[in-house]
């Protein structure tokens, strides 16, 4: 399927989807949103790109193999839990920086757990979708 309209539209839509997924990921802790929804959104962006062009182009745009992304995400999520063990608290207890970062708010290990979930969802969904599109 080579549609010039879809290809041009998908470029603009992809920017919107990526911005919105990062926004939802960052907002996630206290309001609706979080790693899972954000990961699904960014996976939708890459799936749209793969539909408009070819799955191969989408893989090249992603740079990394989806399986590598799953691995990095799992390590990030598990590593965020280990920070609490270092301080002698139960696994996965939230650790927060004492000061606020402008525009981001308080940063803590909970964010890194969310980031891990984000990467795992992105990798898993793209692994399934791109393999199906290549059939």
């Amino acid at each position, binding site marked *: *399927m080579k549609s010039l309209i879809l290809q041009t539209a998908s470029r603009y*839509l992809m920017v919107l989807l990526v911005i*919105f997924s990062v926004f939802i990921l960052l907002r996630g802790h206290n309001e609706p*949103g979080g790693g899972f*929804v954000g990961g699904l959104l960014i996976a*939708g962006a890459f799936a749209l790109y793969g*539909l408009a062009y070819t799955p191969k182009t989408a893989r090249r745009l992603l740079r990394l193999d989806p399986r590598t992304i799953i691995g990095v995400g799992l390590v990030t999520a598990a590593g965020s839990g280990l920070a609490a063990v270092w301080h002698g608290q139960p696994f996965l207890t939230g650790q927060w920086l004492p000061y606020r970062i402008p525009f981001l708010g308080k940063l803590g290990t909970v964010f890194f757990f969310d980031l891990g979930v984000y990467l795992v969802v992105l990798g898993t969904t793209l692994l399934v979708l791109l393999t199906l599109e290549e059939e």
Partner: protein
Amino acid sequence: MTNYMNLFLEIILGILALAAVAGFLRLARGPSLPDRVVAFDLLATVGVGISAVYSMAHNQPVFLDVAVVLALISFVGTVAFARYIEERLKGGTL
């Protein structure tokens, strides 16, 4: 003034619900696959409208984000369906 506004929004919600019922009818009855895909797209659009009007009527700004995400994602779904139909057309049967 706000009373009239709320009444107005509730009426819009009712009309959108009727549109959803009509869309579901077409989804169930549609003689061919493209009819069903168009009905599916209509249902997603009605869903966007309902969540936007609901967020206005009940003062819940979170539902506006739901509307944005639904609008973006339903587009991807419709494109995927269109591609599927195109592949089936190449095979000869619809």
